[in-house]
């Protein structure tokens, strides 16, 4: 295991130990562990696709907008089409993600700007479709969420989904041609292009996976809230990027991966939850997350090798 992963893992362990010792009743309570896993699963599922986007040195700023839109779409679809809602939402996630990729590669708009633009589109669509209000789930549709809400001890279906997705994405990253291309593009796009690799197609697929994972995260969110909220995504955007970066995936591309994102998610959720458990005002949470993100960048990047920082 490389230095970055080891470091992130030890941070996770230290955080966990500190919280477990300082306030065992509150932190280790079944309720709190359940909440912790709920949050971790949502963040992780949203961040797992984004990991590939960041691995190729791009960024997806539309994850928040997509989360808002997809919670609304999923609830509406559950209400009207029943079980098909899963396919509709996931399919739409993949397609809108692909649209992001097309804007980026074919119109040659930097992903930072392109996804910033589409983020606005998605957020607005969410408001338009929902009429600006949260949309409740019809009671008849509740049972359709069973695959995500069933419980095995403290573990829920959504937690298992996060775990399964981790396995799948880990395999995609390490053992498929696509995963190899992602690493290659992240390190050197020119060399990859000149090796005869379809670089644009690979990039578009990265964005499509980011859309797909945003859709899955929205489904998990709905399974918790039992409603679709057209403004829910905004606060998630930075947390999700933070989860990827804190895990040690470099914004410059090439370095990192889904295991890093798993560790990053745990750090972000443990910090958020820990502050709550210890009794620090939630208003301080963003300060701490911000500082941790910067520290993570300082620790994971070998900055002596970077000549210019922009």
């Amino acid at each position, binding site marked *: 295991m490389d230095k970055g992963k080891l470091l992130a893992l030890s941070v996770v362990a230290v955080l966990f130990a500190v919280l477990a010792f300082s306030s065992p009743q509150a932190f280790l309570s079944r309720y709190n562990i359940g909440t912790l896993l709920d949050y971790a699963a949502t963040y992780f599922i949203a961040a797992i696709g984004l990991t590939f986007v960041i691995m190729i040195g791009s960024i997806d700023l539309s994850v928040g907008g997509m989360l808002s839109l997809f919670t609304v779409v999923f609830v509406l679809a559950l209400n009207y089409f029943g079980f098909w809602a899963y396919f509709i939402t996931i399919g739409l996630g993949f397609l809108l993600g692909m649209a992001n990729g097309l804007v980026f590669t074919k119109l040659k708009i930097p992903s930072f700007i392109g996804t910033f633009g589409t983020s606005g589109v998605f957020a607005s669509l969410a408001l338009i479709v929902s009429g600006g209000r949260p949309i409740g789930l019809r009671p008849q549709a509740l049972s359709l969420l069973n695959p995500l809400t069933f419980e095995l001890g403290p573990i829920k279906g959504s937690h298992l989904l996060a775990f399964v997705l981790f396995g799948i994405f880990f395999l995609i990253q390490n053992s*498929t041609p696509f995963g190899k291309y992602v690493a290659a593009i992240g390190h050197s796009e020119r060399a990859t292009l000149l090796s005869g690799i379809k670089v644009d197609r690979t990039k578009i697929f990265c964005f499509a996976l980011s859309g797909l994972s945003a859709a899955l995260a929205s489904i998990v969110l709905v399974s918790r809230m039992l409603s679709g909220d057209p403004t829910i995504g905004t606060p998630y955007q930075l947390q999700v990027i933070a989860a990827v970066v804190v895990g040690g995936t470099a914004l410059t591309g090439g370095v990192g991966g889904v295991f890093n994102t798993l560790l990053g998610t745990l750090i972000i959720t443990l910090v958020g939850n820990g502050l709550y458990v210890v009794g620090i005002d939630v208003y301080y949470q963003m300060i701490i997350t911000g500082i941790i993100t910067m520290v993570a960048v300082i620790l994971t990047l070998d900055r002596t090798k970077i000549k210019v920082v922009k």
Partner: protein
Amino acid sequence: MEPVLRMENISKTFPGVRALEDVNIEVFPNEIVGLVGENGAGKSTLVKILAGVYRADKGEIFLRGQKVGIKNPNDARALGIGMVFQEQAVLPNMRVYENLFLGREKFFVRRGTLDQKLMMQEATKILEEVGLELSPQVYVHELNFMERQMVEIARNIWLARQARVDYPIIILDEPTTVLEEEEIERLFNKLRELKKRVSFIYISHRLKEVVELCDRVYVLKDGQNAGCFFHEEVSEELLRSRMVGRELHEEYYLASKQREPAEKVVLELRNCTKRDAFYNISFRLHQGEILSLCGTVGSGKEELCRALYGEVKLDSGEIWMERERVNINSPDQAFALGIGYISEDRRNEGLILHLPIFENITLPIVHRLVWGFLVKRKEQFRLSQEMINKLRIKAPSPSVLCFNLSGGNQQKVVIAKWLLSQVKVLIMSHPTRGVDVGAKHEIYALIREMAENGMAMIVMGDSFEEDIGLANRIIVMKDGRISGVLDATESKPAPSDLIQYVV
């Protein structure tokens, strides 16, 4: 005569490597001193010690008879020692005079603001001095590479003067790599003119140029002195043998292993035109043929090769491969048709430095090495190991990062990649650039072997000698058109035969 510079018994050790061992060199006034050696022989370490980038473990430096301590680049500058790097240190988005005085603007501050007029005057004076006829107001991106280098030299002379040194030493590190023949000649004339007031230390892989230009040449081998020769006695053969420490008996480009290409045409161009780059280019490339493309920058040869690799779109004309008309719009389409491309920029475009050898070698074909969706890592390893053995790549295992390999071994990895992909046509832009003599020879041998196995190659070499030595046939381009076609299978033409078509 008293030497301007004497470096005595310089030794330097890096973790695990003995870079220099008791190296001595002297530089006299009015002299251009060449410094040659294979990669890793210690040339750059030596000049970096002089320029204050590294500090020697042992040894002494005397300037004009005085012992000096050079602890950092500022000390070196204050003593009138400047360095012009291969990767140029000028800023293209700024004007010439701004570049000349970058970091020294304080000198021109009058009443709290920059006196631009004074800067311009000073710039005009120094440009005139180095014989560069251009306005200091011009943006550097409008200059050619030779002019940029002259700007850097001018800057170093000016800096030395500011430090009250009227006889500076300027180190030139591979200055001609980015230049074309014409520009090189102009640069050399300027250097010969300037040596009245400056001593140069000239580092280069291009022995021919060193022989032509330098008054004296030092050879380094494995961090030690391996000879010093005067202009009158020096020759390429002599330097080459001293650098590798053995006589190179085999003829250099292995012309005896050259084969007659097959009848079969693998690639044909019919009247290919790209406006402002090349016009009406037609030729046939046969199986097993090595075709050299010669010409200056602006002759259109680079663009032509890029068009064959899908990076430049043709305006008109046809490309045929094995009796089928094809469209090549992107590198992946070119690859699908069996065309490979070796870039001259190995570190950025040839390899992915921070990935291991096996990932690099198998990158183009990794989609074929799968079981369902999953890549067979064992197969990747096996094929890479085969290539490592076959091409004698010096690496302990296929999982070593390419970053840790020498230039020659990196280039072998690039070749291995295309060999494993079994491309039919390989376009090679400067395949031996930045590669030392020993590895160059192995790459020539590889090219011969690939030709024998039927691969067709288009080569743009580092020198006319390389082009002629390797090729079955030479196409010379000038101003975007084919100006001459020479056969080099039966007998080799002389470089002078070529020049008439080039300029």
